[in-house]
């Protein structure tokens, strides 16, 4: 495996291997070993065309714990704001010898473009592209679910997970549906009809328009952020109405199974899709998701970058097409 662009790049066994590797790395990091020499001399570039806190910091921390050199590159303050193309940016990164590029882009498919056009020879990791996918987020969510509800090993057979809210604009939802189903869990998508994408029936997940009808039967609930910045239309009448029908509050948490957990990929709109007291409740594993994100990204970088020796000398790049 050279790139991680979509959950579909991973077989079930490969996905479980990522989770197992992350589990071992997380156990080691909690104990004695803070830093590994594994990727010494490798360069990881964080190429962020969209804003991010968690994902970028988490990739940076992961790369540094593996002793890689990290270059952070954000659209603001670079030549991208002068209109440089993705291709020229990629050629620049190639010239600097990037072994891996972690890319977040507002356009769905940008990471695929970067990986397939052979502008550069390094690995490409999708850190969120438009409304398409965010595979490392799904992996860390599966890791968190397995830790709390599984045996911290194997797959997620038998679990029922609700994904609630703005499924239409959510790359997190799409990657999670693919991964959780691959690992044997059942997924139910809960949203107003306006916030479900066309063709959602082909995803293989159940669809429901009522949070209260499903909440008692799920093992975990994943709240999605209402993505105001991607909303070019009126998707629900008022925020108050959305919050009343699809927001998570303490009353709803209390009706969940006694061991069910509350997740959110962040950043949260407190008071809209999740109330402040439910975000801070004992059922919430939202902060733990962030910590698990570092372990998952260490595992992904390790698995992608080890065993990829390439000739250091004048590797030619095919320009064009």
């Amino acid at each position, binding site marked *: 495996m050279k790139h991680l662009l979509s959950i579909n790049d991973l077989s079930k066994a490969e996905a479980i*291997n990522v989770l*197992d*590797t992350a589990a*071992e*790395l997380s*156990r*080691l990091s909690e*104990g*004695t*070993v*803070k*830093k*590994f*020499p*594994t990727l010494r001399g490798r360069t990881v570039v964080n190429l962020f065309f969209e804003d991010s806190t968690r994902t970028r910091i988490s990739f940076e921390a992961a790369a540094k714990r593996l002793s890689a050199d990290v270059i952070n590159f954000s659209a603001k303050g670079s030549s991208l704001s002068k209109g440089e193309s993705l291709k020229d940016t990629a050629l620049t990164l190639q010239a600097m010898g990037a072994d891996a590029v972690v890319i977040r882009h507002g356009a769905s498919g940008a990471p695929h473009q970067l990986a397939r056009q052979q502008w550069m020879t390094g690995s490409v990791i999708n850190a969120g592209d438009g409304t398409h996918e965010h595979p490392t987020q799904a992996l860390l969510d599966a890791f968190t679910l397995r830790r709390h509800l599984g045996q911290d090993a194997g797959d997620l057979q038998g679990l029922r997970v609700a994904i609630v809210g703005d499924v239409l604009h959510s790359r997190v939802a799409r990657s999670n549906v693919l991964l959780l189903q691959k690992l044997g869990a059942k997924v139910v998508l809960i949203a107003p009809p306006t916030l479900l994408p066309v063709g959602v029936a082909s995803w293989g997940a159940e669809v429901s328009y009522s949070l209260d009808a499903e909440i008692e039967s799920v093992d975990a609930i994943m709240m999605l952020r209402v993505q105001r910045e991607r909303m070019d239309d009126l998707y629900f009448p008022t925020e108050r109405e959305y919050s009343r029908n699809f927001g998570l509050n303490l009353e709803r948490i209390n009706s969940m199974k006694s061991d069910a957990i509350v997740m959110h990929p962040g950043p949260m709109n407190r008071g809209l899709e999740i109330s402040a007291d439910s975000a801070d409740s004992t059922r919430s594993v939202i902060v733990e998701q962030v910590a698990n994100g570092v372990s998952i990204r260490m595992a992904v970088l*390790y*698995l992608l970058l*080890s*065993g*990829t*020796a390439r000739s250091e000398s004048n590797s030619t790049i095919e320009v064009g097409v």
Partner: protein
Amino acid sequence: MSVVLNAGEINRALRRISHEILEKNHGSADVLLLGIPTRGAFLSKRIAGDINEIEKTSIPVGTLDITMYRDDLRMRPPRTLLPTEIPSGGIDGKHVVLVDDVFYSGRTIRAALDALNEIGRPKSVQLAVLIDRGHRELPIRADFVGKNIPTSKDESVKVHLAEIDGSDAVTIEGRDGK
């Protein structure tokens, strides 16, 4: 394929290694065994069992995975990580005995020394191996050896242990599988 050590001979070799560890360290005080997975981990448990029986004590034993410290990570497909369990007392000030099944190029042990360096500062590090097959590529030697087996680089030496392979034996195989 020929058998170079049978179950009884493996047991006697481990027994002798246990005595030698005690002799060299003047008893079992501050001795800690770390097995290198997979088979070194089982061997370290057996040696610890022998030492505990001889000394009527209970010495700490753990495992040390060296995958993240290998020098050939760039050349090979990624390897699955194996468990590292450091005994709760840590390794600072201890006589750490690394235990592995086959001692060959010495690169595994170099990686293990790097890994130990991250974990703490032992008083001394010693090495116990069941088989020393020669062909060292680094200036590293073993303190306790079960059996020296001169080999050619074409041959492969395999240690089979009851814990995972069903029975105990050490076998040697030529490149042509004989």
